[in-house]
């Protein structure tokens, strides 16, 4: 005895057979290989283009809207970066900022330099001289926060000149930009 299940005009068992064949042949599969390729390429791309500056990325906003500022494609390997930036409390015109030569920070309110700013200036000068001596044609990059005063930044200029490094470059953005 044969029992035919009818749903509409098509026999039900025929429909099931068709459906199962369709499902078998057109089951969507996620092809992971090209995606993995792309992901790996992205990782390699980011690793290559990122220029990692270890512990030198202090929070400061350099002056902007300076069209004469020259933007180079690559970081200068002979550069010694001297940073001048306000402390955690935001600083002020009457407060001394923090000075840094690459990753070495000189805090005027720290244990060592409290009430002894000439010592800080001497150490800053020595540090610039030390770092510069390791370079072939040293170049001092002055990265100073735009909200600081000239009186606060000029100590870095004095230290550079004291270290015998007269060629400096002042960091600035070419266009008007609000930086971090």
């Amino acid at each position, binding site marked *: 005895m044969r029992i035919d299940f009818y749903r509409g005009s098509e026999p039900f068992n025929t429909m099931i057979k068709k459906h199962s064949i369709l499902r078998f042949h057109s089951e969507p599969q996620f092809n*992971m290989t090209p995606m*993995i390729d792309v*992901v*790996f390429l*992205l*990782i390699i791309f*980011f690793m290559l283009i*990122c220029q990692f*500056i270890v512990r030198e*990325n202090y929070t400061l906003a*350099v*002056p902007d*809207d*300076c*069209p*004469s*500022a*020259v*933007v*180079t494609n690559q970081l200068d390997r002979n550069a010694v970066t001297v940073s001048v930036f306000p402390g955690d409390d935001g600083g002020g*015109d009457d407060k001394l900022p923090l000075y840094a030569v690459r990753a070495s920070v000189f805090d005027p309110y720290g244990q060592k330099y409290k009430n002894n700013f000439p010592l800080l200036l001497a150490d800053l000068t020595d540090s610039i001289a030390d770092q510069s001596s390791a370079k072939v044609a040293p170049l001092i*990059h002055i*990265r*100073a*926060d*735009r*909200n*600081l*005063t*000239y*009186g*606060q*930044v*000029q100590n870095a*200029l*004095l230290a*550079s*000149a*004291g270290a*015998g*490094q*007269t*060629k*400096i*470059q*002042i*960091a*600035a*953005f*070419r266009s008007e*930009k609000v*930086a*971090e």
Partner: protein
Amino acid sequence: MKHYHSIRQRFASSSRMQIRMIPMIDVVFLLLIFFLMTANFRPREGFLPAELPRQITRSDLVELEPLLIYLQSRPDGSCVVDIGDAGSFTVGSPEERGSFSDLGVELKKIIAQQGRNLDDPVKLVPNALTKWDHVVKTYDMLWQLDLRNIIFTMVE
């Protein structure tokens, strides 16, 4: 001729070493997301070249009389620029809307009036409370006018 595989061979072929890709993909994605989220991209900065004198002293001994540019920042964010005795300009004031480019145009006229050359020294005289932003923008403006002999004054 038909080849028959032994049970051991069949077992060996079925349990071949395979690299399990899925955990690796998971880790790679996690790493990618982590780096993208934590990366702090610093905008590319430009640099203004400058040269400091060999010995910075506070003496005013210069062979040729430089063009003195006095800079004074005001609390409203503007900057008063005095170009020698030639005139005073306010830059960045909300009312006057003067920019450093306008100041450059005025300075060019003054340089021409005074018969100065581009090689003649220009001395920037900020005070201790002049904003670094104003000093750098003035320096940039001078650089745009092809003035290269720029002297920074040290202040007390």
